[in-house]
């Protein structure tokens, strides 16, 4: 995608990979592809992780530093200075959506580039209520309800009434309104209202609870959406912020009980193969158009994801914006082509544009073909509330195939102790097929060929979500 002239400018940079595991590996590979040197960091617990081995093998001079913690910004800045880095890639998690960190990187004495949107955009879109307000000002649909804490009983009743009426119009048989303490968190002070006549008493109860617990009687009122699909729109833009493009939609509806994604599929729906009770193509077109509209309006200047809720009636609502690269970016890249060329790498695009290169193509140059699914292989027990499993992996093998991309930091055939300090993600498997049927078959074939065994301290065998993934492969993209 890049020209030789700009390659030289890119190579003058050096990137600090401020993350671990699988995403650190992907960032390092993208850097290698672009010819940009990098520096990786690791902590004592992570010494056996794949990203450390890769940096040691391929990194070159000053490419690997042991730090006390990934959460310590001072450590990262200090390493970046010593290794003469000019840019920081935060990956996902840790500092990826921390506007203070992004601002520090960009504003310190020895300035560096934060590979992600500029800090002002992270600040603006990082706050859910602010995002909702911004979306509404652009007539982008959001979950019906208040976009600020409500302190007045009359106003609260008025909002609740409109939400009930709205749900009736939508043909929802059992309308539900959610009353939340605005200052609360973690499920505290949330109640559901089934009956409009009950609203006032529930409202007063939540308000009094909020006053007692949080010394703030502000209350949020929202529609409770029960039956929905979770869709995403992948946006990519360069530093001009003027010409964002989209890399299609993804469907991330298959999740664990804790609402953590387990299977992601691109594209978001396949109306040509599966029948939906609504106009699925229109939904996809709408959410893409809305996402681009918002991106253009804020001058969005790197990669990002607009997350949507789509109800069974086919109504999309914006949930939030993730101002970073996401775990599942690989499925969108897998089905995308730029000027007919496949092998799209969104992380490389993120780095390239983050360092100031122009996008170099427009929406018309991007096309899509086929269906891709991503499995998140995790050591956990789906039958027991997805409890993480901890122990030593003894064997991790699978049958290689041209349609399969495996992203993992776990070594093959070597014993590997799962560190308990981080999340138990073991690998991402991206499967591609020309249509949904072929992708499903290949997905099952991959899961069948997979050998993942291990033992914990008590000698019990490894538990993984393999069976859960297999059972859910059948229902992907159905709604």
């Amino acid at each position, binding site marked *: 995608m890049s020209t030789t002239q700009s390659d030289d400018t890119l190579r003058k940079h050096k990137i600090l990979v401020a993350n671990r595991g699988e995403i650190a590996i992907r960032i390092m590979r993208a850097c290698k592809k672009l010819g940009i040197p990098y520096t990786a960091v690791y902590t004592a617990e992570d010494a056996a992780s794949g990203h450390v081995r890769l940096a040691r093998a391929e990194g070159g001079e000053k490419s690997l530093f042991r730090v006390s913690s990934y959460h310590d910004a*001072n450590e990262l800045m200090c390493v970046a200075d010593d290794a003469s880095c000019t840019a920081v890639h935060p990956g996902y998690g840790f500092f990826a959506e921390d506007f203070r960190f992004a601002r520090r990187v960009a504003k310190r004495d020895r300035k560096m580039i934060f590979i992600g949107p500029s800090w002002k955009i992270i600040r603006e879109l990082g706050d859910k209520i602010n995002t909702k307000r911004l979306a509404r000002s652009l007539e982008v649909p959001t979950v019906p309800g208040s976009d600020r804490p409500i302190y007045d009983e009359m106003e609260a009743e008025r909002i609740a009434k409109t939400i009930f009426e709205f749900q009736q119009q939508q043909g929802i048989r059992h309308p539900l309104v959610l009353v939340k303490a605005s200052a609360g968190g973690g499920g505290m002070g949330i109640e559901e209202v089934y009956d409009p006549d009950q609203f006032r008493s529930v409202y007063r109860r939540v308000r009094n609870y909020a006053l007692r617990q949080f010394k703030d009687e502000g209350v949020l009122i929202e529609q409770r959406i029960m039956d929905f699909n979770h869709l995403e729109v992948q946006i990519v833009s360069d530093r001009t912020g003027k010409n964002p493009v989209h890399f299609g939609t993804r469907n991330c509806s298959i999740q664990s009980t804790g609402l953590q994604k387990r299977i992601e599929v691109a594209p978001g729906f396949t109306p040509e193969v599966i029948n939906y009770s609504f106009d699925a193509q229109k939904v996809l077109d709408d959410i893409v158009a809305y996402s681009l509209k918002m991106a253009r309006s804020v001058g969005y200047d790197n990669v990002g994801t607009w997350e949507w809720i789509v109800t069974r009636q086919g109504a999309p609502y914006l949930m939030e914006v993730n101002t970073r690269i996401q775990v599942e970016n690989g499925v969108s890249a897998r089905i995308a082509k730029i000027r007919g060329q496949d092998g799209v790498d969104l992380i490389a695009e993120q780095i390239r544009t983050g360092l100031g290169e122009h996008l170099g193509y427009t929406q018309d140059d991007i096309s899509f073909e086929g269906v891709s699914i991503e499995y998140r292989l995790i050591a956990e027990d789906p039958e027991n509330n997805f409890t993480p499993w901890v122990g030593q992996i003894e064997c991790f093998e699978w049958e290689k195939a041209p349609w399969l991309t495996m992203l993992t930091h776990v070594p093959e055939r070597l014993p590997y102790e799962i560190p308990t300090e981080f999340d138990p993600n073991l690998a991402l498997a991206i499967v591609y097929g020309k249509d949904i049927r072929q992708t499903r078959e290949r997905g099952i074939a991959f899961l069948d060929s997979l050998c993942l065994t291990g033992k914990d301290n008590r000698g019990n065998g490894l538990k993984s979500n393999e069976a859960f993934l297999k059972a859910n492969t059948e229902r992907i993209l159905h709604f």
Partner: protein
Amino acid sequence: MLNISQLLDEIKASPYREIVVVAPHTGKITFAEIAPGDRVHGPQGQWKELPGDRLATLERERNPKPVCAPENGEISLVHKELNGCFVEAGTPLVVLRHMLTRDEVQRTILQKTLHLFLAPERAKYYFTPEADKKIRSSDAHSVTVRDGMELFIMSRMKREVPLHYTGPDGVIYEVYFKYNENLDAGAPLIGVCPQAHLHVIHDMIIRVQTEWTET
């Protein structure tokens, strides 16, 4: 039965422990005026409120941070070649030869005499709220444990599970873990002393206090 004299003699035969002082985080290291053979002091004062002698200064993002001696001892090695260099977290800086204190001797012997309840897995451990309250209000000795009683919360990857104590009944004599610290599988959590053996432990402590001279 426990042979305190023998244990004490064993420790007296090699009363030193080697302490490797490592860099707590990355940064530029500048050593203090120290050389092998120098004697340094660890934290002093009634509550160890005075920091130990400064061994080096570690500067990161323009914040100099002193690296102090964790215990009394004699310096046996200084990695002077690192002076002025950028070091990674965990880099060895200084090696101290530390003569065991009374408390340490006592702890070593206790580890051999008490019933140790070990961490079953690598995780963070906490006492249950009831036990925690009791320990905070008086001390660990006030908590009597029984076989099968729910005593700990084991936390890993943001999930918490209760952990039951197994072993002889008795009082918690020693607590070996710190709040929010990750423990390896097999690391001791608590040392339990059966009521009947308490006098043996008290005798041992008195003997250590009288027989062990600190330098």
